[in-house]
């Protein structure tokens, strides 16, 4: 798919509306400049940088133990998975073997993060489309997941549970029972989400045939994660380039060929259940042993370039580190999934209504600080 010239032509004196930076549906400080013809969108132009915090620059002055913690402020809903990516790249460079127990715990917490993230997405998608109540039902379960984080990692959102080579401290003894309890609660209540939102005819009509992102477009715009998988593109990093022990686990990559917002919705809903499946496989089989591999106190990476990708709740996060052999990265680039997903929005929103733009943004599920970094 190659864009033509006419896609970028605008006329003088048009009806231009800013959505954001402060707008309830942009989930943060994204600013979309929308050219309208009546209520029909003629063009969307994203204006970014309202939360550009120069994390890449800061990483150049932080040590390899420290630099990861900034990434939990990037995609704060996948904070743990972001940290994991940062730890993995260091481990890859140093060729450290991570203990099996640490790997299992990382995956359990990571998948819990993913469920929590999707729950928040579900809640805010409902909220964006005007349904307030699903928000509260989803947050009830998210709160339970957060309390696990709170008990085991010490923080609810930005856990900082990761060190290169393992995890900071061992989980509490009641970890397994608590996780099972939460999973049971989640599974018991899952039908409520379907009743209040999924099955709702208004909600379905809001999403169906809205924001068509074809497979070719998804590849061309570099979309990843559930957004791309809803376009029929197989791109789950956990399957394609397994890391941290995902290769040993049984789970399905949820793929839909619907290409519209409804497909994106369905993929995310199904992904939550897959995450449950992963956790259920692991939770009773967490091996005993060390939780952290021995690393030097001051980590220095060998000279060279390292790239590691992980599957966050929103797609492929790549950490690209250029090391000059020093104690901090020479250049650190985060290939963020939301940035690529965002670049598809101007293309797929064209021709729809303002209300549809909200639906598209709700189902693509952007986290703005991850875009701006």
């Amino acid at each position, binding site marked *: 798919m190659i864009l033509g010239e006419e896609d970028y032509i605008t006329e003088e004196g048009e009806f231009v509306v800013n959505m954001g930076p402060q707008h309830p549906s942009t989930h943060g400080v994204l600013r979309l400049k929308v050219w309208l013809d009546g209520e029909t969108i003629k063009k969307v132009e994203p204006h970014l940088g309202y939360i550009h915090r120069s994390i890449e620059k800061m990483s150049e002055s*932080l040590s390899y*133990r*420290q630099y990861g*913690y*900034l990434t939990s402020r990037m995609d704060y809903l996948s904070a743990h998975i972001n940290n994991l990516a940062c730890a993995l790249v260091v481990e890859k460079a140093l060729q450290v073997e991570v203990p099996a127990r640490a790997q299992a715990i990382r995956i359990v917490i990571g998948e819990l993060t993913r469920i929590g993230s999707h729950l928040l997405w579900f809640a805010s998608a409902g909220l964006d489309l005007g349904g307030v*109540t699903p928000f509260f039902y989803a947050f*009830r379960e998210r*709160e339970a997941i957060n*309390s696990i984080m*709170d*008990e*085991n*990692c*010490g*923080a609810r959102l*930005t856990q*900082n549970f990761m*060190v290169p080579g393992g995890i*900071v*401290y061992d989980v*509490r003894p009641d970890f397994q029972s608590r996780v099972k309890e939460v999973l049971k609660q989640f599974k018991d209540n899952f039908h*409520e989400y379907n*009743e*209040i*939102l999924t*099955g*709702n*005819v*208004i909600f379905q009509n809001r999403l169906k045939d809205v924001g068509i992102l074809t497979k070719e477009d998804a590849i061309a715009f570099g979309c990843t994660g559930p957004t791309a998988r809803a376009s029929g593109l197989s791109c789950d990093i956990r399957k394609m380039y397994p890391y941290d022990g995902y290769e040993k686990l049984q789970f399905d990559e949820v793929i839909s060929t619907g290409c519209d917002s409804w497909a994106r919705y369905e993929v995310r809903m199904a992904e939550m259940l897959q995450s449950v499946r992963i956790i259920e496989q692991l939770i009773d089989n967490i091996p005993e042993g060390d939780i952290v591999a021995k690393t030097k106190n001051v980590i220095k990476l060998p000279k060279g370039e390292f790239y590691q990708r992980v599957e966050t709740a929103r797609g492929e996060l790549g950490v690209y580190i250029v090391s000059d052999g020093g104690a901090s990265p020479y250049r650190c680039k985060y290939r963020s999934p939301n940035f690529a997903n965002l670049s598809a929005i101007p293309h797929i929103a064209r021709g729809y209504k303002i209300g549809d733009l909200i639906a598209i943004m709700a189902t693509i599920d952007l986290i703005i600080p991850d875009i701006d970094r």
Partner: protein
Amino acid sequence: MFIKEYFGTIFKSIKSLLTGMKLTGYYFTHLNKIVTEEYPDNRATLKMAERFRGEVIMPHDEKNEHQCTGCQSCELSCPNGSIKIITKQEIQADGKKKKRIDTWVYHLDMCTMCGMCVEACPTTAILMGNEFEHSQYEKKYLKKVLNKPGSRLKDGVE
């Protein structure tokens, strides 16, 4: 068949709407399902998770002694410089000069509760506390000195 489809749509829609209303109706009539914890009223029973990181604290024992040697490894490990340790030279009983902390400045306003300082501390002089009610009208109250006035290093901690 247009008519059949038309009415089929209507019935399906109404059914799906009623399903949703049944759920909200269920919760409306089952008030025991309410999950609200009334925060300021439940302060007496509210218990934070044991690992919850609310602030950095420096425990002092009853003799007003702490365990901080002033090695500054926490200061180094802090990624954003929330910790500032000002040391002084203290003349010991045996006449030797030793480095001791003068003030252990903790910027609560900057602290991100990552816990790296606690990890780095060799003498477990600092811990993460559970306190979270830090709201203040003025920013200056958020800058804290953790070592209590007149406190000294516990014997035997090096």
